[in-house]
């Protein structure tokens, strides 16, 4: 098993956000997490990546057998966990190229590999750039600065391609994308799928799952996974919305 989330609980400030998540992901699998706004989808992504504003209050997460929660965000990344941000950050003054080089060098060092020579690095960038159809003009620009929504998301996928993670978490990668951009991003992800890596796709809509077909779909509601199934579950949600789920759940929740 690659990722084992066991009864994970977390809060932001005083507010409990995750209330006991259980999820297992094996190599080669694509899992989708769906759910209404505010259900905790993005919080789960943030907690797994190690965002400091979240405090884990219970449960455990192992990643390839190691305690994930014990690692700093940079170590999680070097161990092979990747988060594609819902809102990629703009950093004026840091060039995209310089940033990618620093990240790749750290990953290689972690594996005991020497840094790429400039020539090797350029060849590597070029190969990955083509894979995700990333405009080479954007390479020497400041990181994400002035990029369109689609360019930012494509840049996330480019980073994913370059860092070759074991587990990629895509946090609402489809938000703010038009249909063409969505297709390009999805094609990039599909090309990167293999029997050795896994994806956790967080999305509000079914649409993305037409392009990246998941093996499993989970519904997150109020900090818990309330239902798991196959791709059909996503279609059912698309058809019926989330309201039926809310009603069903409220009956089960104790009156507060």
């Amino acid at each position, binding site marked *: 098993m690659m990722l084992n989330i066991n009864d994970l609980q977390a809060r932001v400030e005083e507010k409990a956000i995750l209330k006991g998540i259980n999820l297992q992901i094996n190599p080669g699998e694509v899992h989708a997490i769906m759910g209404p706004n505010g259900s905790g989808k993005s919080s789960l992504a943030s907690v797994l990546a190690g965002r400091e504003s979240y405090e884990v209050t219970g449960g455990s997460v192992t990643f390839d057998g190691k305690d994930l929660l014990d690692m700093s965000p940079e170590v*999680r*990344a070097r161990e092979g966990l990747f988060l594609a*941000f819902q809102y*990629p950050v703009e950093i004026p*003054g840091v060039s995209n190229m310089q*940033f990618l080089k620093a990240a790749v060098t750290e990953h290689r060092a972690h594996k005991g590999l020497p840094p790429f020579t400039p020539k090797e690095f350029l060849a590597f960038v070029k190969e990955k750039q083509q894979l995700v159809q990333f405009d080479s003009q954007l390479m020497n620009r400041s990181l994400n600065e002035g990029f369109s929504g689609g360019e930012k998301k494509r840049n996330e996928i480019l980073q994913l391609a370059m860092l070759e993670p074991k587990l990629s978490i895509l946090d609402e990668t489809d938000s703010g994308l038009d249909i063409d951009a969505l297709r390009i991003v999805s094609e990039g992800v599909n090309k990167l799928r293999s029997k050795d890596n896994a994806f956790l796709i967080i999305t509000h809509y079914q649409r993305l799952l037409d392009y990246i077909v998941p093996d499993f779909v989970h519904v997150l509601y109020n900090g818990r996974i309330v239902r798991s199934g196959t791709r059909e579950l996503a279609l059912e949600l698309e058809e019926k919305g989330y309201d039926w789920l809310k009603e069903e759940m409220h009956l089960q929740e104790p009156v507060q």
Partner: protein
Amino acid sequence: MTNTLTSPIIAQLPGVFEQHLSDRKQAEPASLLTQRDEAFKTFMLKGFPAYRTEEWKYTNVAPFLQEAFSFDTTTTVANTTVEELLKAAIPAGLDAYTLVCVNGKFQKELSQVPAEADVQITTVSAAIEAGAYAPHFNTEYDYKHTFEDLNTALFEEGMMIVVKKGASVDKPMHIIHLYHHSSPLFAQTRQLWVVEEGAQAQIIETLVDPASNNAVLFNNNVTEIVTEATANLQHYQLQTALHHVRIVHQTRVHQHEDSVYSHFAFIMSSAAFTRNNIDIVHVGEHIETNLYGFYLASEQQLIDNHTAVHHAKPNCNSNELYKGVLLDKAVGVFNGKIFVHQDAQKTNAFQQNNNMILSEGAMVYTKPQLEIYADDVKCSHGTTIGQVSEEALFYLKSRGIGEAAARNMLVHAFAYDVTAQITVPAIRKYIEQIADEYLDTFANN
């Protein structure tokens, strides 16, 4: 509120000055001796700047003046020692002429100078003798700083550079100010640079006071600069001195029509105290002034940058950008003044000071000031104080970049607007490398 500075130096000064003057009676023209005398009287009347007066509101100079200072800059130092120190002071890959001053005095035999047809370099005493000095020395303008008066009264030696009319100096000139002393030294050094009509030059300055001196250096330097019509001067100050160095540096520039003066101040030292004053006066039209600064301060350092641009004539541009990063318990002070005089219509004047505070105990006092007396001008000024963006830091870390490296990256990015203006690649590399080392030291403490 007045606050009189007490220091043993106050009682010492009249005797020092009297001796100084009598030593020079034979060598210097009467006019210079008179100026020295007047400057000294003015200084004694005002005294060292009192803490909390407007110009020194956040900068208390008193703690830096408590040693039993010597004013004697005469020294002999082995050439081999000098050569070793020089090597360490030259940025890797910098192809430049090297002009060496020891305790303020230009040393021709240690220097590699440009062709005499392009640039004339002499000691101040030789320039005084030749009569070339007086026309540009201590030029009258409404306000002189206290330390400037003290310098005029007491300066012993220095260097005069004249870039000849129409000359375009093929390589930058790197001035290395080397100090050699074994007891606390109060050094008044003086420079006068004239860039004649149509001439172009780049001047880089570095101060070296090696740890082996083992005693405090208080360097009160005045550099007077004239850019004649259509001249272009780039002036880089690389302040990288060690902890025992205290600096008051005055740069006073008179710009004539169509000239360009660009000043780059990089303060990445361990010096306990740095005060830089830059005063620019426009005496012609169509002038361009660029002032760029980047300062890094840590531990208990005090770094104070005061700049003033006097737009006295129409159709001139000035552009100022100072950025600072404050660590530990360091204090940064920025004061930028732009005066747009009544005649100075069609002035474009921009000023910006941005600060990044990386430690809870660090502080910055910043005051951009704009005084406009003309009615058809474009001026702006602004200041910010912020921190490293946590979101940006997390983004970098989430890609495997370590905390310290990510922080360095963001500081470099912050400084980028300033470092990108450097036109000498070796200097840019040097600045970025020193900044890295500086931040690494901070991260490892």
